């Protein structure tokens, strides 16, 4: 593979990973919010 094409593959991989990480972080925030609300409901 040419150096330029190889760079492009790596950059694409980095972009994909960043996107997946962003989605996971978003889901984590939602989950933490839901856990907090659930705990408050139980303790009420």
């Amino acid at each position: 593979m040419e150096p330029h094409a190889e760079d492009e593959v790596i950059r694409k991989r980095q972009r994909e990973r960043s996107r997946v990480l962003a989605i996971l972080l978003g889901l984590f925030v939602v989950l933490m919010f839901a856990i907090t609300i659930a705990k408050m409901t139980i303790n009420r």
Partner: protein
Amino acid sequence: MTSVPLTHDQSMTADWRDLLALTKPRVMSLVVFTGLCGLLAAPVPVHPVLGFAAVLCIALGAGAAGALNQWYEADLDAKMKRTANRPLPAGRMTRQTALHFGVGLAVFSVILMDLAANHLAAAILAVSILFYVLVYTVWLKRRTAQNIVIGGAAGAFPPLIGWVAATGDISTLPILLFAIIFLWTPPHFWALSLFVRTDYANAGVPMLPVVAGVTSTRRQILLYTLPMIAAAIAPWAMGLTGWLYGAVSIALNLVFLALAFAVLANRATEPKQMKPEKRLFAFSILYLFGLFAALVVDRWVIG
């Protein structure tokens, strides 16, 4: 936008699919299922969000253990056909990435379990990860043919964790669930290791068929099947479950026993002629799914 030149480390940036593969998703499915069943079989109502979070933590913990196992065993995996294409032996990821990913996921899963469920569930989750990585992977696997027997305990924790996440304590039924998987692991893995023993021998892993031979392994499979059957029927015999679990359990155990006898009767030494072993291995997975599904249906339908 100016493009910054890539460094050597960046050229090894792992694909997210490889990070996912590091968690052994297929193994995780059985872990998640048994953990969920432990949670659903508990005699207390669980808030759906907290139940989901607990099962997620069990899955993440299992994934972390799988990642750390692959980090430590990259050299072994490279020698076996079955595992040579995993991200580390195939050179698609650095060992450091796998280590950081595994440790991070393990710590995250334990902290989240503590927040979502309770201290005891988080502590058992931590013990199960450490047991799989340190006791099974690092200590036993390369040293003794009993690796699967003792190491099997690691895979037996999920239903116990699920139960403890729901109730906050340990009682007889979750201990029996632990015992079922603990005693199921040797026949399940030895059936597999009989027809891939050349792989294990080439990699220098002292699995029972490599060390003691195929005949002895076939005998051991039957010997471990007997206490496994006792443990699987015990919840019904002790009055901890209803008739539905009892009926399904007896039926599944009779099939398991018949297949274990078929393995014992087989004299073949070539993997191609090991149909009884392959049948037992495939059925053993179905057996565990069926047994735990029956436990939950029994609890929710019969009551």
